[in-house]
């Protein structure tokens, strides 16, 4: 009899907790939240093809695709403290964003289909990755403040602080871009050698990603 009561309690408890488990899993997939917004920005949850309007404080999760309209801008604070600002006309998918128990980033992978983003990447005290991929290349960074723009047939990167490695998707050749420098890669080609960016070039991308 006592054994049966214990079984009932276990089954009942499990039945009570079971619905909570998926919620917790969803919570673990939360990558960040909206902290700045201009215009009718939207998110397509999990690539379902049904973009929903975003508002301040909304969470964004892994597999979400974020769309910024031509008259909009968006700023995200990620769970590791990194800040990502999206310029108008940007479309970005959060492919991966793994955080460890101490809140530090293990790896982050973003897919930039079009537009421009600025990433101020939070430093971590262990090896981790932060990569943004476009159709023609991938940019991997350490702790840094940088920009990446996906243009038709090309990707351009500018670095304000830290350093970025820009790799061609077609040839796998790469260039290292230090602070105050920039580089670009065009479809099917090696990356263009890095060069210093002028203040005007930086100012252009800063203003495009500056979210009030």
């Amino acid at each position, binding site marked *: 009899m006592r054994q049966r009561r214990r079984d009932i309690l276990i089954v009942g408890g499990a039945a009570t907790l079971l619905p909570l488990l998926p919620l917790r899993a969803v919570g673990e997939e939360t990558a960040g939240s909206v902290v700045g917004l201009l215009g009718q920005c939207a998110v397509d949850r999990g690539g379902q093809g049904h973009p929903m309007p975003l508002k301040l404080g909304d969470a964004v999760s892994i597999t979400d695709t974020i769309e910024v309209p031509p008259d909009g801008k968006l700023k995200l604070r990620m769970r590791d403290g990194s800040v990502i600002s999206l310029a108008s006309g940007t479309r970005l998918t959060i492919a991966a964003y793994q955080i460890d128990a101490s809140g530090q980033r293990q790896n982050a992978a973003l897919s930039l289909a079009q537009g421009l983003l600025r990433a101020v990447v939070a430093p971590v005290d262990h090896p981790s990755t932060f990569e943004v991929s476009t159709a023609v290349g991938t940019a991997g960074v350490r702790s840094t403040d940088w920009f990446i723009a996906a243009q038709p047939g090309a990707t351009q990167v500018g670095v304000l602080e830290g350093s970025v490695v820009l790799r061609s998707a077609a040839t796998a050749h790469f260039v290292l871009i230090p602070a105050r420098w920039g580089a670009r890669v065009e479809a099917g*080609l090696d990356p263009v050698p890095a060069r210093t960016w002028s203040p005007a070039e930086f100012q252009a991308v800063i203003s495009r990603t500056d979210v009030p």
Partner: protein
Amino acid sequence: MAVRCLAVAIGIAGASGPAGAYTASGDRNFPATLILPQLAPGDELYLNYNMLPLSGSGAGAVSRSTNFTVVYGKTITDNLGIFLEETYTGDAVGGAGTLWGWQNQTASIKYLAVNNLDHEFIMTLGLDRETGGTGAVRVGASSSGATTPQLYFGKGMGDLDIGYLRPFAITTFSAVTLADTAPRRDVVSNGFAVEYSIPYLQSKVRSFDLPAPIDHLTPITEVLFTSPVGRSYGSRSTALIAPGVSYAGEGWEFAVEAQLPATRATGNGIGVTAQLHIALDFFFSDTIGKPLFSNP
């Protein structure tokens, strides 16, 4: 004496500005040149070796000139910079072995007046000042100083619809060296460099998956002319052709060129020049490698 003066003339126009152009305009990188002065201001360090046989013969005549030059470039703003330069010269003199000594100290200021990124076009204004009497007379350093206004152009062909010719670029250099006092003569210098950038070919035209180090090379040929103006004091015109190749690493370049005198007054045999260029703005972009005044 005339030959010695010409050697110094080459030194002024060439060795005094071995720091080459490491300047970008848009997706075009103009690699460092070895004979022509550099195209634009930058935070750079250049170490240059230069050897040229001369036509002097007999006792007291210079038969070979060797120069080791260090140039430090520092940007004040993004478009304005200064360069400090020191050259240590060894002149092989008939009957006297090799005489060593410093050339006059030189400093220059350059202003990047035009940088059209879309058309890969650059124009720079420069002013070079050589301080007379700061070098050793035994290696040809003049007791007279000189001031040299300079004009530079750089143009890449990447904006033209010319297919595999788009990696070509040309830079030009024009200057007038105005001596402080006689008997030092005034000199007009003109030069150009033609280059074909393999990195540009790979990144802007077509990637051929070329193996290293070929994919980092830029064949380059420099040409420099000098002519005395006004009273020549026995000087004659010179012409030097320098074909070679530049290898671009990440933040550094190494280049080697032959030196082919086009006239007997220029030299007497094939010389060689080599240069290591270190981009301080690449390795120290947050400290000594950035302009003193810059935004952001």
